[in-house]
């Protein structure tokens, strides 16, 4: 399974090992962490809702696209679901390849696409006691066409 959803902490070392390959000279890893703030509010914890049937299918498709487009050897992505604490890994992408250029490009492609195409939502719970579904930063502006400019 190249794309998976996990309701327990992501084992980064195991994932890295899973893409290790003696024909590869490069590994690029991206980790998305739970930050202690977002748009001026202090975050206490975060909750991810994932609609697995579509997320997994579309996640696998994104990885296949990256492998085909950039010619990397191995790629995987794991996304968390449920309640996460500060500092936890929310999403992990690992890509290995003979050379580094493709590995960087493929890793970035996968996380950019994952953020705009997968049915995953986050609800931030603030220190103030309030909680809120988070739209991507740029969507707040009315009429923003999603997917044109991937962003955090």
């Amino acid at each position, binding site marked *: 399974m190249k794309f998976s959803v996990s309701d327990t902490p992501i084992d980064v070392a195991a994932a890295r090992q899973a893409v290790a390959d003696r024909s590869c000279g490069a590994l690029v890893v991206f980790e*998305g962490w739970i930050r202690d703030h977002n748009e001026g509010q202090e975050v206490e914890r975060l909750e*991810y*809702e994932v*609609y697995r*049937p*579509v997320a997994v*299918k*579309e996640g696998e498709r994104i990885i296949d696209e990256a492998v085909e487009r950039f010619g990397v050897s191995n790629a995987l992505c794991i*996304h968390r679901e449920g309640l996460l604490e500060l500092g936890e890994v*929310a*999403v992990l992408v690992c890509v290995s390849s003979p050379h580094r250029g493709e590995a960087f490009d493929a890793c970035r492609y996968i*996380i950019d696409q*994952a*953020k*705009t*195409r*997968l*049915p*995953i*939502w*986050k*609800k931030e719970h603030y220190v103030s006691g309030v909680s809120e*579904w*988070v*739209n*991507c930063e740029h*969507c707040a502006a*009315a*009429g*923003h*066409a*999603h997917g044109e400019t991937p962003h*955090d």
Partner: protein
Amino acid sequence: MKVRVRYFALFREQTGCSAEAVEWPGGTAAELFQQMAAKHAGLTAEAAALVAVNDEMASWESTLSDGDEVLFFPPVAGG
């Protein structure tokens, strides 16, 4: 025709409902959303919302068929 509609995250909270059966004359996914927005006062269209039909991502312009399960996804925010 009959379709099943499912709401996720923000949309579920706006409608107060996670799934419902809908009887309607037929049309596109966008038209169905408009009809549901007329029914549920809180449900508001978002430019970045996505739609899936029978667990496959779909276009808002796709025409629905009898028996389809239509998933309304508010703007996604993974990672």
